[in-house]
Structure formats: C-alpha cells, structure tokens
C-alpha cells in the first residue's frame, strides 16, 4: 500500500514536471559555467537574503546543552569560537582565524596560546575576552552543568576528565587559563594534532548572562548572547528563524548577506517543491525521483556532491558463540558485494567502503588513503585472499566445534530503525549471506535507541551501526573501538585479548607520534586489526547531493566544514 502511494505521489510530481518544463531545455549546463559568469560580473543584488531549510527544528540556543545536528548548524552561525574550519573551493579545508587572530603552538605540541582580536564583540557590544573561553570550558568540566560535548575534552585537556568525573580535580584546575584579557592558553595531555578541530565543540557562553539566566539560558532568542556573523531576529520554533547580519561582528564588512532565513520543512518532497517554487534557495535531495526533478530544471540549480565522512558498518559481537571466531566474522564481512549494495539499496548515492575510513579522511593535510597507498582497503585484499568465504566460514565452524552446515547457524541482525530503508537493506543482506555463505539470518527490526540499548548490554549478534567522527583524523573513527574508553568498548563489542590490547597500544602510540607518515602507518596497523579480523565490517559512506539556486553564489561546503554563510551573496535573482 505504502509503495503504491509513493508511486502515486512520484507519478504526480513527475507528470507535473513534464508539463512545467517548457521548450527551453536545450541548454545543457551543469551550473559551473554560470557560476563563473556570475563571478566575472560580480553583480550583487540589492536584496541579500538567503533562505534554507532543515528537516528539524532548532531545539535550543545553549551551546553547552543543545548539541543536536540542527543546533550545531545554527550555533555555527550565531556563535564563533577561536578558530574556524572553512571549506575551500577544491574540496579541502583550511583553518582560519576567528575570534583568535592568531595562535602559537609550543614546540612539543601540548600548549596552545590563542590571541583574541581587539574588535571581537558580543552582539550587545561587550568585548569577547579570554575569560569568556576559560569560563565556558570550566562550565563544561562541571558535572552539574551536564554539558553534552564535555566528554570530547576528557583526556585531551589537562585535568578536564578528572574534574568532569569528580576524580580529585575541580573545574578551576583544568588546563585552560587566561594569561590576560586577550590571551587564552590551553595545556594538553598529549600533542593532539586535531585539537583545533575539537574547539568547535565548545562554543562560548558569557559568565554574567549565564549566571543571570540560569537554566533559561538559550531557551529563547532573548536569553542568549551571540558573537557570530549573524544574530537571531525572530524565532518561531517549528516554523522558521530569521537571522540578520551582526553589525558588531569583527568582520562585518565582509559579510554580504543581510538576512538568512532558516525554515523547518520536515518532508523532503515539500522541500523540493519549495526550491522549485523559489521559496527556498537550497535543498539536499536523496530520493532519485527528487534528483530527477531537479536535473530537469537545467541550469537553474548548481549541483554539489559531497562524500560524507560518516562510515556505515556492521558490528559483530565478539562474545557471541560464533563471532568469537575471527574466521566466522571475516566470512560474514567478506560475504557480500558492496558495489551491488550501493547500487541496489542506495541508488548509487554512496561510496562502497573496503576500509573503515571514508576516502575523505586525512592525516594532517594529506588524505589518509594516499598516505598508506591504498593499503587501507583491507576488505578488497582479503576478498582476493579468501575467494570462497563459505569455506572460511565452515573452517571456523569446525574450529569452534559446531555443525559445519552453515544453514544450521542461528544469527540475528539488529536493525537501527524500523523504516523502509532498514527493512530493505537488512533483507538484502539476508539474501547475500544466504547465497554466499548458506546462512539464513534472522532480522530483528527495532528502533535505533533500542538497538543502542541492546548493544550497551552486549545483547546482540550483529548490529547495524554508523559513526560520524568529530574531527578529520582516522583516530576519530578508530577510537570508537578503544577497548576501554571507546563507545564500542570491550563490554559492548566483546573484543578482548591480545588483538584488542595491541589495538589500544597502537592508538596510544599514534597519539604520541608527531610524524604524520608514521602516524598514518600506525593507524593502518590498527585498522588491520579492527577490520582485518572482522570485528566490524564497513559497508558504505553516503554521497550527498545538494542543489543550490544559481543566483546564490559562493555556497561552499564539504563534509569537514559546514557552509560559511559569511561568503554567500545573491546575484542575478529574478
């Protein structure tokens, strides 16, 4: 029934598109040309207003407590931290000065000193000082505050975790101090090269207002102080938020937009219609039929494709009677066709993964996969080595003293959600494993939070998982399987023994290694343990397609850096 209705809607949409499409479709243009034209002319429209939509509302404006994806996206516009990672036009990123005009890093890489610019102001005119940052970090380290991002700094900033977990240190003892009003100094436990990326996790609050408003801080637009390029003008939670240029912003002269409007549109098909009707200026389309609609519009829209840095994978419970055997795990990991998966299930809008690392992850400034010369595609190498995963599986079954007939195995796959996608992808896996291994798995459909609960209790065989790292370094992904402090620690993954110990050692070694090539090699060795023994089986990472109205220029982003609204300008809007 659902399918029929879906087709009906699609049919209606498509037929309408055909009618709506007049004879001017001869212009074949991917949009890039018109971008160049726009830049040559550099005509800037009188009305500088950019409208975008998100599928969920902003929950709150307290950067310490509200950290869902929509919150982060908005806080990025209204709150500025010390540095800012921005996407450049070649798909890479650069770290730009923000509230800090420059920073020094000590020889051993453990002490960072930031110099705050003179003209950095809060939107009410009060100067942004080093004390604001010290206060923000101290609040985060205070367990009573319950800051959701605090754990990111555990083990990074000196004494941070000890204060947060009440282990003999107080928030005042953490390694963040103000040398004077304009200089703030961070002392790290180790020379973490990705430290600058973590700073985004701590957007600033101001002591006087944080204390005055208490728990109301961030609950409405009148209960927040902002220092970003835009500030909130009006907010109707589930409808829209209007932001205006912050005239007090230190770089206000280079901010071109006067207004940014953020609308809430829950249904993707409504968002597509809204873009076509000119009510919004950008949309991220996932459904093939929506993409088709957009492609038909020719050069009205620019297409931006980005590889997402969040890998999807299956996790095997290494305490399970079968999956404690690496051969059995590997057989499952090798026993399906990733290319086919991407085509059948995700309509090609993904990159198949043979490594846990999506191809966009870097060590320092260089792509990880280039540094290790593609050696990280471990699954590919193993698939060459073990051409018959079923034989490998039977070998494993015999080793463990089971009936060598795979069809007698009883294995359950926990889904992460009960959507059509979860159902379809799990059934696809069932089919593949039946064909390639002779195993018929049992699919346990469950909501994502229930799945995480089950994983937390170690009550699963195979789990459906995915992870978006907080920073652009392989450690951001590998460390989730750290046997002690990772999200999938030994209790959840069931991974113990010499391999797990070695994995932990490698990660710790890497974090102490300043040489980037050496570090990449250590990450590869760690990945060989994690992926190479089948603790997890990477599947794919998504490719997002974004359509931007052609008149909205310099809309640039990638998976490591969100859109920089300061740069966008409107040119040639009818």
């Amino acid at each position, binding site marked *: 029934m659902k399918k029929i209705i879906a087709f009906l*809607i699609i049919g209606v949409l498509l037929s309408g598109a055909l009618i709506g499409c007049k004879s001017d479709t001869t212009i074949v243009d991917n949009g890039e040309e018109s971008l160049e034209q726009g830049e040559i002319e550099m005509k800037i429209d009188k009305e500088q207003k950019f409208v975008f939509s998100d599928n969920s509302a902003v929950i*709150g404006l307290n950067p310490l407590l509200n950290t869902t994806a929509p919150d982060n996206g908005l806080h990025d516009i209204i709150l500025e931290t010390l540095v800012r990672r921005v996407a450049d036009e070649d798909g890479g990123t650069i770290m730009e000065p923000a509230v800090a005009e420059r920073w020094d890093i000590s020889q051993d890489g453990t002490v960072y000193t930031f110099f705050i610019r003179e003209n950095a102001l809060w939107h009410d005119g009060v100067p942004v000082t080093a004390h604001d940052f010290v206060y923000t970090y101290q609040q985060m380290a205070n*367990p009573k505050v319950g800051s959701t991002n605090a754990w990111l700094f555990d083990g990074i900033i000196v004494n941070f975790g000890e204060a947060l977990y009440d282990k003999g240190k107080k928030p005042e003892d953490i390694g963040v101090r103000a040398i004077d009003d304009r200089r703030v100094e961070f002392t790290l436990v180790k020379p973490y090269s990705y430290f600058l990326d973590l700073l985004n996790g701590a957007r600033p609050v101001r002591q006087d207002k944080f204390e005055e408003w208490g728990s109301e801080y*961030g*609950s409405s637009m009148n209960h927040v102080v902002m220092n970003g390029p835009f500030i909130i003008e009006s907010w109707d939670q589930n409808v829209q938020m209007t932001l205006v240029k912050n005239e007090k912003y230190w770089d206000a002269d280079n901010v071109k937009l006067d207004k940014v409007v953020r609308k809430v549109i829950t249904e993707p098909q*409504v968002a597509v*219609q809204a873009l076509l009707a000119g009510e919004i200026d950008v949309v991220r389309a996932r459904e093939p039929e929506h993409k088709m609609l957009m492609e038909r519009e020719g050069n009205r829209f620019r297409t931006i494709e980005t590889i997402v840095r969040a890998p999807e994978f299956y996790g095997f419970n290494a305490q399970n009677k079968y999956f404690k055997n690496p051969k059995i795990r590997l057989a499952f990991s090798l026993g399906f066709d990733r290319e086919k998966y991407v085509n059948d299930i995700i309509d090609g809008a993904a990159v198949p993964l043979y490594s846990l690392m999506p191809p966009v992850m870097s060590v320092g400034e260089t792509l990880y996969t280039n540094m290790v010369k593609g050696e990280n595609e471990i699954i590919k190498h193993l698939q060459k080595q073990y051409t018959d995963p079923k034989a490998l599986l039977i070998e494993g079954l015999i080793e463990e003293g089971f009936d060598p007939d795979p069809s007698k195995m009883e294995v359950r796959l926990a889904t992460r959600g009960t959507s059509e996608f979860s159902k379809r992808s799990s059934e696809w896996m069932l089919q593949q494993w039946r064909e390639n291994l002779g195993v018929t798995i049992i699919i346990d459909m469950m909501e994502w*939070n*229930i799945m*995480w609960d089950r994983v937390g209790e170690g009550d699963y065989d195979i789990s459906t998982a995915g992870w978006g790292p907080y920073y652009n370094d392989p450690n951001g992904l590998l460390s989730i399987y750290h046997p002690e402090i990772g999200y999938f620690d030994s209790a959840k993954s069931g991974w113990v023994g010499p391999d797990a110990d070695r994995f932990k050692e490698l990660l710790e070694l890497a974090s102490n290694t300043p040489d980037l090539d050496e570090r990449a090699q250590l990450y590869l060795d760690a990945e060989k343990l994690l992926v190479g023994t089948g603790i997890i089986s990477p599947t794919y990472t998504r490719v997002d397609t974004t359509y931007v109205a052609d008149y909205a220029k310099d809309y640039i982003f990638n998976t490591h850096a969100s859109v920089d609204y300061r740069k966008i300008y409107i040119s040639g809007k009818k």
Partner: protein
Amino acid sequence: MGRFILKRTAYGLITLFLIITATFFLISAAPGDPIAAKVEVMPERAQEVIRAKYGLDQPTYQRYFIYMKNLITTGDFGESVIYTGRSVNDIIRDNAPISAKIGIIALFFQITLGVLLGMIAALNRDKFSDHFIRVSVVLAICVPSFVFAALLQYFIGFKWGITPIFGWGSFKHYILPVAVYAIGGIASYAKFMRNSTLSVMNEDYVLTARAKGCRRARTVRKHIFRNSLIPIVTMTGPAIAGIFAGSFIIERLFSIPGLGQYYVKAVSDTDYTMVLGLTIFFAILYVIALILVDILYGVVDPRIKIAKGE
C-alpha cells in the same frame, strides 16, 4: 445538575490520577531514556554525568514522588529534558492555540458540512445525490490524509500558486491544512448522520407526524433533525479534546508549529516530563469534553435524563 457535575468532576480527578500514574510508570519502563539522543555517542561514564544532572540516576518510584509533589503543590508540569530551559507549561501555552485554531475551524466545517451532506443523502435515499455522497464519503475515508496533503500541496500550492506550499503565519496558510484536516471528518460525520437520519425516519413518531399531515420540511426540522444528532454529539466530545492535540501528520507536512509535533517527538524521545505534561493536559480536556457531552445529550434528546441521582 450541580450534583451531577460535582460527581463527574470527582470521578474525573480519580481518572486523571490513574492516568498520570500509569503513564509515569509506562514511560519509565519503556526502553531508551530521554537523554539517549543526547548521549548516543558518549562513553558510559560521560553518560552517567548527564543522567545524574536530570535526576535519572534515581529509582523510578522516587522520581514519581518528586514529580507528583511538584505537580500537586505547584501545578507545574516540570522542565522538558530535551528542550532545555523550557517548561512543559510554556510549550503547551505557545503551541496548543495553534493546533486549536486549525482544529476548531476544521471541526466547524466537519460538523456543518458533514451533517448537511448526511441529511441530504438520507432524505434522497437511493437517488443520484445519495449515491454520489456515499461514494465520495468512502473515498474520503479511505484515502490517507497525507495523500490529500501531497495532492493539494502540489496542485493548489505549487502548480497554481494559490496558497503557500507550507509554513505558518498568514490567513492563506490555513487553507490547505484545514482542508486536509476537515476532509476525513466531513466524510465520517456525513456517514454517521446519514445512518442515524435513516433510522430516525423509520421511528413511529415520525410516521405519526407525517400521518397527522405535518409537512415534510417541518417533520425534518422538528422531529428528525434533533434526534439524529445523538451520534454526532457523541463524536464531537472527543473531537473537541482532540483538536488541541492537533494532527501530527498535517503539522508535519505543512510545517505547522502545533502541539502534535511536540507530542510525537516527546514520545519517541521518551522525554518523560513532556509526555506526562501533555498527557495530563489532553486527559483534562478529554474529561471535561465528556462531561459536556453528557450534558448536551439532555439538550438534544430530552428523553435522556442526566440527573438520575436527583
């Protein structure tokens, strides 16, 4: 009458108490917890810090007593766990009126048009208008509201540009959601009205009236209409309570900031203060609506005596 209302209010309070208690323990027993979405990716010990902050580290019964004490002494539904810094009372105050506005307008059309169509169908039994109305009613009940919404959004909003496709604010924003909201209701009211009118038309007193020489129009007005309204009154009570809850699907499709979206999100997040607060709010409305319906029965059909106790 006074005694009746008093008695019903007392029952209502007991009902409320039972609902609150049951909801509290059910939501606590449900898998997942309100901070799951926040802590999804955190290591265990970091999760504990957050849990402690929201008092979720305490045993359920203890949280129940704290909650009840707060509720009875201050009437405060507490602070949402997800929407930090905002009380549930605030969220209800800000969003219930929006759901209610759409709901009341839709309900008005549902009842008037529904009753009208139902009467027309019944009075013209087996004629073209009856068949036409019946087929339309079946269609309107069977086709889900999101399909209507998508069709209206596409044609009226997008292709013809008569109304906005989505959003909230001006008068024009009401048109599509109210139409989608009303359409199913019109159909069910018409269906019930037709059936009850037909059965009333066969009552002895109607035949008597006609036999006495009472004109058809007068029979319909005086004898049939009022008596056929009983099922409509029964349906209206819960519907009035329901309009504040809004329609999740419609609010979602049209991006309307009503209470329905919050309610559904609260349940999926297990944001227990929100779920409890909203449940209590809806339960109060429901209890009041039911008392009103009981009173209305007497007005519509004097044969139903409410004050049996007197």
